[in-house]
């Protein structure tokens, strides 16, 4: 009987120990959930080919987690969302014929930690294809265990491909829809310009160019336009922002602990920077900005120009100077009036 009691007690003790030592399901899930961490290269790829030909490219990625990660390669379609170069992603539909042309090798793999992997993307363009195709290659976890009683999150990194199938019917036709400054009057630089381009063609275009700044007829500065090669998709607008910051003093982003601080409108807060080594960049008066945009129409470079005027007036400094001048003027006036009055007094005395 005693032996039996001891046996039951020992069994219970072992069971309790296992129960205590075993992690709870949530804790186990938390500790075994490394998330998803991936580094990809390159950034948007621009490919050109002809109907009936095969074009290939590579998507490279690295699993930055410490454990192997199953990766599945997928495909989406994209268009332009808004006018700032943001893609609008869509799931593929039966209308997206290009889905059957695109093949990945491998389409699924185990990515070891911190090792670069290459996925070969082969696009077999049929003979009846033409013009532009805009797709996104996605890299996502191969097996995502959904969890009951929680929101499961599937992370995906997408790389854009802009494919131009040259058929001889492509039209590249871009014009400047607008060119303006964010303000007509700046106290100090930077001055911000936006140029809106309209692509009336049927193929994407990546324009380039320069923004030239003039004081009167003298060129005093220039800024490269679209150095990153941002594209305008067909039948859409694209707004490019250009900043001219060759000024003194200059508004710069306010940094706290090396980080920009956004205001309530998500715009970085700014503060005035006085770098006296750039004092020769002091700006005052009326300026002219001329944008020169160039795009390749397939045969030659097409230049386009637009101009806008704006003012830079450091009005606070001007106001202080004006007040000082007024004070000095009043002082001189009082002094002169005093002299005159004294002179008159002497005159009266003399007459007496």
């Amino acid at each position, binding site marked *: 009987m005693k032996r039996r009691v001891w046996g039951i007690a020992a069994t219970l003790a072992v069971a309790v120990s296992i129960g205590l030592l075993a992690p709870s399901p949530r804790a186990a*899930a938390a500790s075994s959930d490394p998330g998803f961490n*991936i*580094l990809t290269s390159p*950034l948007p790829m621009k490919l050109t080919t002809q109907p009936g030909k095969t074009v290939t490219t590579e998507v490279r990625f690295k699993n930055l987690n410490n454990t192997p990660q199953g990766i599945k390669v997928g495909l989406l379609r994209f268009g332009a969302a808004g006018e700032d170069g943001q893609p609008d992603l869509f799931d593929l539909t039966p209308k997206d014929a290009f889905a059957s042309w695109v093949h990945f090798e491998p389409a699924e793999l185990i990515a070891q930690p911190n090792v670069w992997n290459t996925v070969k993307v082969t696009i077999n363009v049929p003979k009846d294809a033409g013009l532009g195709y805009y797709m996104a290659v996605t890299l996502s976890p191969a097996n995502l265990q959904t969890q009951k009683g*929680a929101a499961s*999150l599937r992370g995906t990194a997408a790389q854009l491909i802009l494919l131009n199938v040259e058929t001889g019917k492509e039209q590249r036709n871009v014009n400047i829809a607008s060119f303006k400054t964010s303000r007509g009057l700046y106290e100090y630089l930077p001055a911000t310009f936006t140029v809106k381009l309209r692509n009336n063609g049927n193929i994407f275009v990546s324009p380039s160019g320069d923004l030239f700044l003039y004081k009167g007829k003298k060129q005093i500065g220039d800024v490269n336009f679209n150095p990153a090669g941002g594209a305008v998709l067909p039948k859409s607008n694209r707004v490019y*922002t250009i900043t001219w910051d060759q000024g003194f003093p200059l508004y710069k982003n306010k940094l706290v602990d090396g980080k920009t601080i956004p205001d309530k409108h998500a715009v970085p807060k700014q503060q005035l920077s006085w770098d006296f080594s750039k004092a020769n960049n002091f700006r005052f008066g009326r300026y002219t900005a001329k944008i020169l945009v160039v795009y390749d129409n397939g045969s030659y470079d097409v230049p386009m120009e637009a101009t806008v005027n704006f003012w830079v007036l450091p009005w606070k400094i001007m106001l202080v100077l004006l007040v000082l001048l007024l004070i000095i003027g009043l002082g001189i006036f009082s002094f002169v009036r005093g002299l005159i009055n004294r002179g008159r007094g002497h005159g009266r005395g003399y007459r007496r």
Partner: protein
Amino acid sequence: MYKNKRFLLSAAALLFFLVLPTLNAGATQLNQASVRLSRMTQSFAGADLFVTFKLNTTPTSVAKVSICFPNTKSDGLGSGFTVSAGTPTVTGTDNKSGAIQNSPATTVPPGTLTAASTTTTTGVCPTGAGFPTWAGVITISGLTSASLTNSTLYGVNITGSGLTNPSANAQYNTMVVSSNSTPTVIDSTYTPTYIANATGDQVTVTAAVNPNFSFSLSANADTIPAVDSSTIQTSTGNVYMTVATNSPLGYTAYVKSQNAQLQSTLHSGTPITTGTFDGTPDTVTAGTTKYGFVPSTGTACSTCTGVPVYDAEYAVADGTHAGSFNSTNFASFVTHAGYTNGDQIYLRERDAVNAAVQYANDYSDVLTIVAAGNF
């Protein structure tokens, strides 16, 4: 008389041996010396100098140190340096650790140092058989003799030297000379320098940085605490995504809900549905069924242009609103028009239920978070 002669001879011999070390000292070299040109390329004008020296003996009467520049190559042929008359600047910082300019540990010599460059080398730079002819000399004056020691390696920078390097690549024997204030030469030593061809002293370094885009999700599951008709609940998993890219075009991130609602397999008749996807966050009220998405910035980027900007649907700043899901399309929720070394964006879900939503612990949904570089 004989005795006197012996005495005089002895005295002369003694005097000779007493004087001999002094004569020897005049013929010895500085213990250590070097001249380093900032540019060793041929015909370079205006190279700066870093000069080091260590004295042979102390106490000493050294008050000046000169650098003599030859006007021929070390083989006596060709042409050498060109020295312009002027007043170079002597600067120096104690370099105890040897960290500055990858140099040996040096100390600035005591004194108020000045320098002068001249083509007149007479009396300063040694001449005669075995010595080169000199193009000019730079002399550092003002050393405090009494404070100099022979255990210290002294070093100074000379800028504005007025020196032009020889036009041919070859070895040139410059010389460092110490002298007293007269000046009378005390010690000297050769410090050979090699002048390289036009590009021989520089390496052009080229490098490339790949375009990159990184995306991480800290976890794959997020739990909203149990909700009832009197509360609003927000997920507590602190799941976040981090996006970094070196593209100046920036990135956009999207969310897509599998069901646009939290569904229970036990009670599928009363899902917790999302609000209206209309470009404005929905109000979440206790007692009214609603399910939405609340992204917010965690740690901001430190090397970046611009800041993350939330789409109007998801611009939520309080605990009583949430953006609705678009179950049919990917809905962009944040964009950053510029490069960033890492935007940390918290991804939270928020819900509220009316009293009729049936109790169960398996309400769930799948959110797909996509991030893509802009074009």
